[in-house]
C-alpha cells in the first residue's frame, strides 16, 4: 500500500495566500471583482483593488503603501464593464 504524503504549507512560498489546498493567486482573486461587471466595481473599490488600474512599475508599487499610492498621480478610474467581456 502506498500512501503519498500531502504537500505541507512549508513548501510553499511565504508570500502566497494559501487557503484551502489550491493557491488561488492574490492578483487573480482581485480580478474576479471586475469580471462580475458593474456590480463588481464597488467591491473592487472597497478592497483597494484600484491599484490594479494605476500606471507605474510593479516593484515600486509593491513597496509603496496604499495610502501613498492613492495620493500618487496617474490615477485611473476603474473600468466599469457591463458584462464580463
Amino acid at each position: 500500500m502506498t500512501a503519498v504524503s500531502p504537500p505541507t504549507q512549508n513548501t510553499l512560498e511565504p508570500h502566497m495566500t494559501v487557503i484551502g489546498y489550491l493557491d488561488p493567486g492574490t492578483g487573480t482573486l482581485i480580478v474576479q471583482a471586475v469580471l462580475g461587471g458593474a456590480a463588481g466595481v464597488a467591491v473592487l473599490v472597497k478592497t483597494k483593488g484600484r491599484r490594479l488600474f494605476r500606471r507605474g512599475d510593479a516593484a515600486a508599487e509593491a513597496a509603496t503603501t496604499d495610502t501613498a499610492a492613492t495620493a500618487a498621480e496617474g490615477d485611473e478610474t476603474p473600468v466599469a464593464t457591463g458584462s464580463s467581456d
Partner: protein
Amino acid sequence: MTDEHSDAPSSTRPATFDPGSYRDPGSRVVRRGDDVFRLLDERALTDWERLSATSFFRREVAAGRIAATEPDHAVAGDFPGAWAGALRHERIPVVSYPYEWTFSMLRDAALLQLDLLAAALDEDMILKDSTPFNVQWRGARPVFIDVGSFEQLEKGEVWVGYRQFLQQFLYPLLLAARVGVPFQPWLRGQPDGLTADQLQRMMSARDVVRKGGMLHVALPARAERRYREEGRDVRSELKAAGFRKELIQANVRGLRRIVEGLNRSDAAGRWDRYAADFAHVAAQRAAKSDFVTTHAASHHNRLVWDVGANDGHFSMLAASHAEYVLALDADDVVLDDLYGKLAASGVRNVLPLVQDVANPSPGLGWRSAERPAFAERSAPDLVLCLAVIHHLVVARNIPLRAVVDWLADLDARVILEFVPPDDPMVRGLTANKRPHEIHRDYDEASLRRYLAERFVIDAEQPVPSGNRRLFALRPER
C-alpha cells in the same frame, strides 16, 4: 483496463492510493482490484451529502456527465487513515490526460467544467478546483470524475479555482486558437498550465484585444505582478466588501461565451487530407479493411491500439470487435477531426489520443508517478500498425529490430503493414537523406528475420498495387 484481471474478490486484493489524488487531504481516490473508491473526511462527507441531495447532481449523473457514484461507507475502514465515509465510482476505461487531448476535447472539457460549475452555483455549491485532470472520457464523451471537488459555497466567497481554470483550460485553448501553437507539448511540460504572463508574452497586441484577451489574460497578468509580494487575505477582504455569488455567475457566463467561440487554428496539421490526397490510400483501403476485420474479429479484444490512426477508418472497424479502441496519432489536427466525427456518431468506444509512439507520454508530476506514463495506463491486446513502420524506421531512424521488439514487448497481437523501401511514400521520406543515413536493414527479408524471433505469423497477404504486405502476428510466448 490497466489493472490485471483476477477472479479474487476485490476485498482481498491489494489497495493503492491513486498517485494523482493527494492534493485534497479530505478526499482521496484508492483502487482495489477493479473497484475505485473515494475516501472522505468529515468535511468532505458533509459536502457529499449536500451534493447528493441537489437536483443538478442527479441530472448530470443520469446524463453521463458526472461519473456514476454511490455511497459505500462500509469500506472506509478497510484503508489506512481516519475516514468518515467512502464512495464507489464507476471505472473509466482508459485514463488520459489533457496533453493527450485534441483542441476540441479540451474545449468540450472546459465547457463541461463551466456547465457543472454554473449548475452547482444555482444550488449554492461550487467546484473548489478547475483542472482538466478532473475530466475523463468514455469514447468521445467527457465525464467529470472528481465528485470530491464540489463543496458548499459560503456566502461572499470567491471562486478559488478561477486562476486554475485560466491556466489549465482557457490559456492552452487561447494558445492554440489565437497564437496557433499546439497546447499539448506545453501542458506536458508544465501540467499546471500556462501563466497569464507567459501567454501574454506570446500574444500579439491584436490577440490581446480580441475577446477575452484583456479581461482574462492582460488583467490577471497585471494583477499577479502588482499583488505579487502581498500576504493579504484577499478572500476575507472581498467578502467584507460585498463579494457575492452573482459576480461568479457573471464571470462563468462570460467565460463560457469565450470558450464556445474558440476554434482551432489549422496551421499545425499535416495529415488531415491524407485519405483524400493520396490515391493509394483509397485503392488499398478495401483490401486492408478486409484483413483487419478478419483478424480483429477472430478474438475478443478488450483494448485495441490503432497506431497512426489518422482519420480513424481502421479504429472504427476495430471498434465493432473490441470493448475499447484508442485511436493514436501524433497529429492533433487530424485527430481533432476524428473526435468531431466520433462525438457526432453513435460510436461510443473509440477514444482519440494525441500520442507520438516515438515519444509517448512519460510519467509526470510528483515522483514522476502523479500522472503515469502512457504505457502504464493502457495495455492493448491488439495493435493495429498500418502504414506506420516506415515513419518510425525511415523518418525517425529507429532501427527496424527495435520497432519489432517494441511491438513484441506490448505482448499483444499485431496487424502490421510493411511499407517497402521502393514504395513511393518511403521514397518521399528519403528524398533528403543519403543512403548511409538510413538503416540498411529496412527490407522485408530483415523484417521476417526479426519477426521470427518474437512473433508467430498467423496470416499474411500482399496489399494490391505495389509491394506492401500485411501480417497478422501473435506474440511468441
